[in-house]
């Protein structure tokens, strides 16, 4: 095409766009490297093998939860009950297995089913009945918090955990913590579901245009419910594993995953597939959140400051995702 010579301004503009296109996907990896460099300068204990193992260990369970959370978020559905589901799973599996002596396998199956039932309940209320996901999942979370006390009483459970279970949760495979390897396996499985199956295509399509998906004959409600079930099921799995890792349980002292999971998934939207939630992005997001947590503890900031940083990271991730995805060409002609 014989274009007229571009004026200075338009050349600048298109150069800026190209720059954004090229550098946008590199932003999150670059930030990760910058954070690692900063912490290793500030603390000589940061870039040490055992500390890196710690980071992976701390990442494992939040990663399982965040991978699950990614699925409903892709469809535009929020799930704020994840932390309560994980905490409920930790407490109840401890009561059933450690205190009451139920077989570990049965306990795990029961709790996983219970977790998935919570997801089913959330999903039916949100997609079939049409209630607000935000409010429904907050309410369900509160119910679960209360049920933790109802089941456990105000008593700490600290004995009776099966030895094999505890050893498994604390073991390593080569240099990697077993739970982290497990989390990566879960991430790969969910990635395959999303990117390599028709169901995953439906999930992503619902996030893009739910009306069009409905008209195309896809059962939108069923797919959204599946998202909630998967999310709650994985949160319950993380909660069960947390019980083994800690071998102690007390109501409302479970895995702190709500904020880190959301932060990770939103950081992930600024990496790989820009502007879309995606599993590799979520993995990177969890690692960033864990690295920052770990680094802050190493350089001895006050423990309350960790909360401030967690919130700030989420906000920065949102701003960054918006910045790299604001695409002037996207306005069309």
């Amino acid at each position: 095409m014989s274009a007229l010579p571009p004026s200075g301004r338009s050349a600048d503009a298109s150069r800026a766009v190209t720059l954004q296109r090229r550098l946008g996907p590199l932003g999150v990896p670059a930030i990760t490297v910058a954070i690692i460099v900063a912490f290793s300068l500030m603390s000589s204990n940061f870039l040490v093998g055992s500390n890196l193992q710690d980071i992976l260990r701390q990442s494992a369970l939040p990663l399982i939860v965040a991978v699950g959370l990614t699925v409903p978020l892709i469809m535009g559905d929020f799930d704020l009950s994840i932390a309560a589901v994980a905490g409920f799973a930790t407490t109840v599996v401890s009561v059933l297995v450690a205190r009451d002596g139920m077989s570990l396998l049965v306990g795990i199956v029961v709790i996983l089913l219970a977790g998935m039932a919570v997801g089913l309940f959330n999903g039916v209320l949100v997609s079939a009945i049409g209630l607000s996901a935000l409010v429904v999942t907050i309410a369900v979370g509160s119910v679960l918090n209360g049920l933790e006390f109802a089941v456990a009483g105000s008593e700490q459970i600290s004995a009776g955990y099966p030895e094999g279970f505890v050893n498994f949760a604390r073991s390593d495979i080569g240099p990697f913590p077993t739970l982290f390897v497990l989390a990566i396996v879960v991430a790969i499985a969910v990635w395959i579901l999303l990117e390599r199956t028709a169901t995953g295509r439906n999930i992503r399509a619902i996030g893009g245009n739910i009306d069009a998906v409905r008209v195309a004959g896809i059962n939108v409600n069923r797919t959204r419910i599946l998202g909630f079930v998967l999310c709650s099921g994985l949160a319950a799995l993380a909660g069960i594993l947390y019980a083994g890792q800690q071998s102690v349980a007390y109501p409302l002292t479970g895995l702190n995953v709500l904020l880190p999971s959301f932060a990770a998934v939103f950081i992930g939207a600024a990496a790989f597939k820009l502007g879309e939630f995606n599993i590799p992005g979520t993995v990177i997001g969890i690692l960033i959140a864990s690295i920052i947590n770990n680094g802050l503890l190493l350089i001895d900031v006050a423990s309350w400051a960790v909360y401030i940083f967690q919130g700030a990271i989420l906000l920065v991730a949102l701003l960054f995702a918006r910045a790299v995805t604001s695409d002037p060409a996207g306005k069309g002609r």
Partner: protein
Amino acid sequence: MGTVDAGTPIIRLEGLQKRYAGVHAVRGVGFDIRAGELLGLVGANGAGKSTLTRMISGGEAPDDGRIEIDGTPVTMRSAADGLRRGIVLVPQALTVAPNLSVRENLILGLERNRRSGGSDGAAVGGPREIARVMEALGLEIDLEQKAGGHSPAVLKLIMIGAGLLRAPRVLILDEPTAILAGAEVQRLFAVIRRLHEQGQAIVYISHRLPEIVELADRVAVMRNGQLVGVEERGTSAARLAELMVGGVVEQAPRSPDAARAARGDVVLDVRGLARRPKVPATDLTVRAGEIVALAGLVGAGRTSLLRTIVGLDPADAGEVRVADRVVTPRTPRQAIDAGIAHIPEDRARLAIVPRMTVAENVALPHRRVGRRVPWLPLITPGRQRRAVQGTLADLQIEPAHAAELPAGGLSGGNQQKAVLARWLMSDARVFVFDEPTEGIDVAARAQVHSLIRGLADRGAAVLLSSSDVEEVALMADRVLVLRHGRIDAELEGDDVNETTIGLASLGERRDEPVAP
């Protein structure tokens, strides 16, 4: 208005340029918009009309070139800047807030600049001004009622009314009739003519060339971001189409072979299908190889009927049969399984997932497309692409590697073909089209028409709903005219022509009455 002599340029454009990443949308366009004139602006999809109008109305800053208003170069930073200078753009899409009342929609955004009083001295947005505008538009609706309940046609008129309330020096109408039908189009024409007679300068953008030829004093024609000509009054639609596409447009010939259609077996048989209150008990049949069109005004209930037939809005009485089997779909999935494909109106909202690739959009309802091993539910992007590639090529979807591109980036015509490709990959025997060429340029429109005809030729039963009487007359073997939700007339043979269809839509009949 009226202080400037007719014919004096209000706006002068010189060498306007706009680039987006990789796309040179507008390349050195310059012309005048004169006081009191009705300037038509035409061009194929992607010719740069929308970008140009956004620059004229301040919504987008040109990369290069000049915009002069009353002889003074201006720099506008936002659409609000444009409004302050009296340039009002009424966009193609419906931008009415459904939860606000008609009055609130009319005066939305006006509250802040009431000082710029109207022509007769009444406060802008005041009851008298609103009454005047409503009368000019011929609208008799309750101002306090929520806008959401009205038909698209009325909503469009409300948008134009909101524009008029700003006492515009130049009123830009982007595809105002794209969603209107029959009587509403005529009503809008009457409104536009009246405004024109009152000396209102209007820029009128449309794909419907006969409209432009009829209304415009001059017509600016764009192609590939450039101005390829400014035609004076007296030009023809054929001439404009030729300028737009840079060659002669091939119009699909009228399919006269009604005899062929009449021989086929009844494939789609709708008996007493109802969904009250919108769809009263309705009977209709479509034979193999037949194209039956639903005509009627916007709001006559065409879309409601189609949505009931395809299970989007389940029926509460009656049945749908496909080849003598009762299927009466209650969900779109059931319709698909019964062999009914639905290509809905409003592509962007109801058919396309813009972010996903064309291949994914085409494969969307087909769980098995793209599998490596038939019994394993794993699909690979490469297989999925190859599986749809042949169909995309048959439909001449452009560019050739469209399968890998996000569907949202394609032109309207190519998007529509992609939606069609989706259903060509199923073994549908019934194709239901709602406004198949809405917002599609002339060349793509002719292609879509011959694709639809090709379906019928291969024995599909086609049910097509359109507010475009010309399209109905061109395509249909038989026409069912809906009025107030009911099939009010059935036209066959020589009665399938624009005049008869148009009259029937309004409840008028030629010669002897047709049995209902």
